[in-house]
């Protein structure tokens, strides 16, 4: 019995700690930023609190600290390659532990942001922006892609 006890104790002292796998991390694009009709020469602002037109990402994963970082476009591209400037302000992103657009902590989407995923493993990120059409902006449909990277921190 003593020999077995020593084996168990030794193994526990020198063995690699058993760690939990944790929930897998998923990020989903829920809704795009919709500027709608834009008039040449007239800036169009979409707030991150706009329930219909703001962008939204949903996060599902372990209860942990996560690092949020965006890849933001500088322009939107339209007909015949026309470019329209796109701006993101210092408070154009928001993090919500309750996934509620009315309950966000604002942050600058141009900077990495550390957030805490709650016990249920779910959170949301909202984003707004400003389109700045020139007075001679070519008429037509314009698009751009916004990417959100999420990393679980150790």
């Amino acid at each position: 019995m003593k020999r077995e006890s020593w084996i168990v104790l030794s193994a526990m002292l020198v063995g690699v700690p058993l760690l939990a796998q944790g929930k897998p991390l998923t990020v989903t694009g829920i809704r795009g930023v919709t500027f709608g009709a834009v008039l040449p020469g007239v800036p169009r602002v979409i707030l991150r609190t706009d329930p219909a037109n703001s962008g939204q990402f949903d996060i599902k994963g372990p209860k942990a600290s996560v690092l949020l970082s965006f890849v933001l476009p500088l322009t939107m591209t339209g007909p015949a390659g026309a470019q329209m400037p796109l701006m993101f302000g210092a408070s154009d992103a928001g993090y919500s532990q309750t996934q509620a657009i009315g309950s966000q902590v604002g942050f600058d989407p141009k900077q990495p942001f550390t957030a805490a995923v709650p016990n249920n493993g779910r959170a949301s990120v909202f984003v707004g922006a400003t389109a700045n059409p020139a007075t001679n902006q070519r008429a037509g449909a314009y698009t751009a892609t916004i990417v959100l990277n999420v990393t679980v921190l150790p």
Partner: protein
Amino acid sequence: MRSITKLSLVVAALVLTGTALQAQTNNASITATASVQTPINVVGAQQLSFGNVFPGVNKTVNATDLANGGRFDVSGQASTPVTLSFTLPATLSSAGNTMPIVSYTGVHALLATQVGGVAFSPAAGATPTLSGAGALFVWVGAQVQPATNQAAGVYTGSIVMTVVY
């Protein structure tokens, strides 16, 4: 003793083979979309023409004068409100001589025939709405006041209209 040995080996195996937690990263994308409407275009379609003017005799051209009133033609996004503003000269000039121009009047309408036109003061500007075809016509009139010793000659000046959404 044997059961304890087996249990010990199982425990040791579990401890030794535990897997380290890997850092997780993931991403997603969304699209930003916009539909840019038609830009505004303004053309000076007709001059404000006083014709022959006699010294000491004021002459007026009304904005309702389709033949002699100044006219701007505007095109842009259909059924969209715009704001009109003007730069109005106080005098007309000819070889260093000046002649006062005063009492500006204006009419804006959706048709070139001025049917349904709305009178306004160019000094104050206006905020009409473009037609369903994206069109607007704007006329300007005024009065010149030549002095009794006004020097003969062709007098001119520039009236500038600015249109924005």
